[in-house]
């Protein structure tokens, strides 16, 4: 168990070109280890919330992970914060096709201090094994199926032992059966580690496995409720 981080958001406002408000969240608090789904129509601002939580987007307000408000930090300090605390997963995996599964999962080792590289690689291997890819670490991901690729991406996101996992449509590129198996593995892994998970998704089955569900519409948080377990 690595344990998750709590997050508290207040007065968050992301504006786009011409000052148009893309997202506005007045207040939001998530406990450590919470599994939180974010749903809403396309273009509502779900991914923008995710990027704001990751400190990848310029915004006003406060986003506090534990004791750290990442908003006033410089881009470089935010990157350092992400390296230690936040893992990210994307819809189309974003793997380096030319590298093996193990190298992709341990990508962060390339920029870590030498002393920490071995530990990260070991953790990446352990995550791959936990996700059923232990025997395929050396294989190039170019030969992997969509489900296998997303597993490699999950291993990469969790290789640093980050207490927070942010996922953007992790099952959208997968068929139903693969998506369900991936969901089960992902949730098993984050629950086992106590990781805080925020996942943006249209996938009702994935939403169904969350502790809380946020609904975003027109750039605003319109509902924050406990997951309707058993829905659909």
């Amino acid at each position: 168990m690595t344990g998750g981080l709590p997050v508290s958001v207040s007065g968050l406002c992301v504006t786009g070109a011409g000052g148009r408000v893309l997202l506005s969240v007045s207040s939001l608090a998530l406990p450590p280890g919470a599994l939180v789904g974010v749903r809403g129509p396309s273009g509502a601002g779900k991914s923008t919330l995710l990027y704001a939580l990751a400190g990848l987007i310029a915004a006003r307000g406060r986003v506090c992970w534990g004791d750290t408000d990442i908003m006033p930090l410089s881009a470089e300090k935010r990157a350092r914060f992400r390296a230690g605390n936040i893992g990210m997963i994307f819809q189309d995996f974003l793997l380096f096709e030319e590298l093996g599964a193990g190298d992709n999962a341990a990508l962060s080792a390339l920029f870590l201090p030498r002393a920490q590289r071995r530990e990260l690689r070991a953790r990446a291997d352990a995550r791959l094994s936990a996700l059923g890819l232990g025997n395929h670490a050396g294989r190039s991901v170019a030969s992997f199926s969509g489900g296998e690729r997303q597993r490699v991406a999950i291993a990469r996101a969790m290789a640093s032992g980050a207490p927070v996992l942010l996922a953007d449509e992790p099952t959208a590129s997968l068929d139903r059966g693969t998506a369900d198996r991936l969901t089960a593995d992902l949730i098993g892994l984050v629950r086992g580690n106590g990781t805080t998970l925020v996942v943006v998704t249209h996938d009702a089955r994935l939403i169904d496995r969350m502790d809380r569900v946020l609904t975003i519409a027109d750039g605003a948080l319109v509902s924050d409720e406990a997951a309707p377990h058993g829905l659909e």
Partner: protein
Amino acid sequence: MAWNDVSALWQDIALTVLFLVPALLTGALVLRGYAPWPLVRAILWRFRGASALFVLLIAVSVGMGIGLLAQERGLRRGTAQAADKFDLVITAPGSELTAMLATVFLQPADMGLLDGATWDEIAGHDSVALAAPLAFGDSFGASAVVGTTLGFARYLADGQITGRPWQAEGEALIGALVPLEIGAEFTPAHGVGDAVDDHAHGDAHIRVVGRLGRSGTPWDRAILVPIETVWEVHGLANGHAPGTGRLGPPFDAAYFPGAPAVVVHSDALWANYALRSEFTRDRETMAFFPGAVLAQLYGVLGDVRQVMSLMALVTQALVAASVLLGLFILSRLFRRQIALLRALGAPARFVFAVVWCFGAALLLSGALLGLCAGVGTASVLARVVTARTDVLVAAPVGWTEIHFLAVFVSVTLLLSLLPAAIVLRQPVVQGLRS
């Protein structure tokens, strides 16, 4: 220890390192603490076609620059070597350059003649070990027919004669590259090149009796005959009193029809200077060192060489800059991966290092391949120039070219910081969404 006390080799090595210092420093600063190699390899592999093309472009431009520089130096050495046997040349007053080109490089020229009294004075001088009159003006095919003495023919070929030396008028020794066989006969034509008159010496038949060893000079294509033969073919006295039947020196001043040039060799270096001074006389004779005339010529061309080096370097920097621009455009294709690295928490310097390394890998491979191409180009050019001018040109790549390459590598590795910095400025979220 003073710089001048250091051996030339170590000076060259030190200079190379000095030129590479900016590149090494840049590399060390950019890469400190990171190991981006797997990513750089992955990106190189993904864009292998474009990368190979870039490497080839750089290699060709570097190769041409190196090849030309080496060639220019090789040609300079070759021409200097061609003048080696011509310590001092004495002619009628005129242009030293024209006289040098006529005697050393056998270029046709109208020259005044030295008379018998002058010849006597030169040949009889105490300091002169070898004096040989040269008589130009006839030709056979592409070969100049030069009248001279057997002593000079031996001196020119360092004694290497296949067949036998000439023993009578109407016999000839041919240069190593003359397309005639020993035993062949020919009729010399009056004049050289376009001004040739094939029938002027219709009754003269000259037989080849020997071939001189290769000298690596335009004389390899010349046909040497006794100077008496040239004089007689032109209906002049043959340098000796009638009935003596002599061949070669001493000549009788009263029967000496004149020679456009006399090559003088002296065993002592100081004697050459004394002879030059003695035979430099207004309206009578002109004495000069062909090597010094060449050196003056190189002095004038030296500025051109510097401009050429600079232009080669600028051209290559431009090629490298366009390659880097290409890299920048290419980097748009992997901006998602770059954005991903930032999203994973990679420091800006790491992303910078990946992009810079990608460019550096192409530039270094191009430079190394260019060095090999340069060696090849220089050797091919040397062969072409040797074949065309008969001046034996060897153009090995030297330290100048290595220094040139080191400067190129340093400048371009510094330049490639630019696209790396620009890539870093791309917004991460846009990259992730693209």
